[in-house]
């Protein structure tokens, strides 16, 4: 097949491209320029998107022996990922921009463009597996549980999964580094990227404050009693305990946690740990990676964070929303996060959490 290898400049995408070449594909390396004003050098927790990273990607392509180009996706990235990140926080939700990027950029803008140009698909360095079954191609967890990225890929629909190749899902990260070394890739020991690529400092709250201001508002308990003030409701997350700066102690001295964020009144509501408990969740915009789920309840697992636990649940679709009822309560679940349903290690689908109870 003729495929585009999305190369971030990291070790994973470099090895993925090399494996695709070895598998007999005709591969062209593409680095996505996602910032219209990229920094020259990596700094802080940032793991990609600098000119240095684009250079690393180019050198990896040189070693692998494939053509290499840079595609400017800065406008699309800003519109679909960065602006969405801000508007979600503004609305009191906690978004995951990596999912959004996979859904809108890597496996939409890039895949569509690649297909129109005559390519058959896109290969990336994500840790996930696909399997061919009677129901078509399905998405599965990677064998390395610490690196498994099926959660952030669960926004892909069936057509996108059919156009995706994930050559690393069957290997542990430590072995990918060894393989990169053996292949002579200079990025073999390059540190993993962490956090959000467009927040170089890793300080999400500070980044949001710089762009959205810090409007002071009340911190209240569940009865509406004002306990303190905050500097921008969007810099808090559900379940947060530290940094609340409250001076009024609880009667029994137990700690308080953020229970909800109300963007319209710019209010942060706090309460006791047990009030964080959630036993069911609803998600909007469900996307199914394999056969679609219906109204009939099914047993499986739900995961609500990139490296969170898989929680036993019953799931079904109601009113175009994906519903998961947990066997055991979960503490602290923010709307805006993705709920991803698994059937064993197979990804069933995902939705954006809009309601918890």
């Amino acid at each position: 097949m003729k495929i585009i290898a999305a190369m971030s400049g990291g070790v994973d995408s470099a090895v993925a491209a090399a494996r695709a070449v070895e598998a007999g594909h005709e591969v062209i390396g593409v680095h996505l320029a996602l910032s219209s004003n990229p920094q020259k050098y990596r700094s802080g927790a940032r793991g990609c998107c600098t000119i240095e990273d684009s250079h690393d990607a180019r050198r990896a392509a040189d070693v692998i022996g494939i053509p290499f180009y840079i595609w400017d996706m800065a406008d699309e990235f800003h519109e679909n990922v960065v602006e969405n990140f801000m508007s979600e926080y503004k609305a009191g939700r906690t978004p995951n921009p990596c999912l959004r990027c996979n859904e809108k950029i890597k496996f939409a803008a890039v895949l569509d463009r690649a297909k129109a140009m005559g390519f058959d698909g896109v290969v990336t360095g994500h840790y996930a597996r696909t399997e061919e079954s009677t129901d078509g191609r399905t998405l599965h967890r990677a064998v390395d549980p610490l690196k498994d990225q099926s959660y952030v890929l669960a926004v892909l629909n069936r057509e996108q999964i059919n156009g995706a190749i994930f050559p690393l899902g069957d290997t542990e990260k430590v072995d990918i580094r060894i393989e990169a070394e053996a292949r002579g890739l200079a990025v073999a020991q390059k540190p993993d990227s962490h956090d959000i690529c467009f927040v170089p400092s890793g300080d999400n709250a500070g980044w949001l404050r710089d762009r959205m201001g810090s409007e002071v508002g009340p911190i209240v308990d569940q009865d509406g009693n004002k306990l303190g003030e905050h500097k921008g409701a969007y810099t808090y997350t559900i379940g947060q305990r530290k940094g609340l700066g409250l001076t009024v102690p609880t009667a029994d001295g137990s700690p308080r946690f953020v229970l909800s964020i109300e963007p319209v009144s710019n209010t942060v509501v706090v309460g006791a740990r047990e009030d964080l408990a959630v036993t069911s969740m609803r998600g909007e915009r469900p996307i199914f990676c394999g056969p679609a789920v219906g109204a009939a309840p099914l047993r499986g697992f739900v995961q609500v964070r990139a490296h969170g636990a898989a929680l036993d649940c019953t799931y079904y679709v109601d009113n175009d929303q994906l519903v998961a009822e947990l066997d055991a309560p979960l503490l602290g679940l923010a709307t805006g996060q993705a709920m991803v349903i698994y059937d064993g290690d197979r990804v069933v689908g995902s939705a954006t959490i809009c309601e918890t109870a």
Partner: protein
Amino acid sequence: MSVYLDHAATTPMFDVAIDAMNTSLRKLGNPSSLHTEGRSTRKDVEDAREKIAHALGCLASEVIFTGSGTEADNAAIKGLFWHSEKKVILVSSIEHHAVLDPAHWLVEHEGAQLLEIPVTTDGVIDLDYVKKVVADRGSEIALISVMHSNNETGVIQPIADLVKIAGDIPVHCDAVQSFTKVPLSFKDLGLFAMTISAHKVGGPLGIGALILRRAVEIPALLHGGGQERDIRSGTLNAPSIVAFAAAVEAKLYDAKKVAALRDAFETGVLAARPDAVINGRGADRLPGISNITFPGTQSDSLLLLMDSQKVSCSTGAACTAGVHRPSHVLMAMGLTDVLSQSSLRFSFGTTNTQADVEYALSVLPDVIARGLAANLVGKK
């Protein structure tokens, strides 16, 4: 087969230049040394200087070797500015970044005021604008810089007329693309300064020259051993200088043949894509450059697709991150941001053949069709 249509970026070295360079590389001697070896290398350099001066219609002492065309442009723009008490710099809006960027740098750091000469839709500078500026503010102008021909479109500029209008205001001309392609005489044009580069004319990379009028002594960018009239210190790069002169002296550029290939290509492109627009076609152009807008496409997609069909061409400008940017040249000619990013430059050289043109034309329709499709889904 593979077809190289990017001769304006760099063109193959002529064999005579490679041979001259190899011979020189095996010779010992710093051209500034006083002993036998030094004198021998110095002789090679001075022979080369005279050959280049002869080809350019200037004095040998007016040839100052530099490390690149960019360096010569920087030396000229900054040097002529610092040489003058005046603060206004007048450049065309279609200059290469090697001229525009030092001019902008002088604005930011040295109190210069920059005026840009607009161009017509065919990419020719507006002489009426120059007349007006010279009439109104002539006493404030430190220098004027206009390229002899544009690197993206090949459009030739009316330098002789410009120099007449300028009167005694110093004029610099970046002639990197024109040298050896069209008649060019430093003396006849009446210039103060001119830039040329070896790798555009069949010589090696990394050697250029600033042609600077004898009586003009500008401040140096590089200080050191005092070589090159104390304007450009640094050990003379004898092998590259010798090869540069060999390429120039050989006069191997066949303008008639190159123009015929370019014209055949353009005729074929318009037959296949009647909506394509050849930029600057109404103006006097260099023989080898063709800049074509394919509406509805993205030039970086087209380049990838042409490259995968083994045809090498250019999208024009890219930023430091390697991202394709709208061309300031095409935008100055009135193209929109979008159209200027839908344009490719094909540049032909003496090594190209009719078969090259036919091959490029044979892959073009499919490339454009895919480019149109990619643009519909992938962008905006």
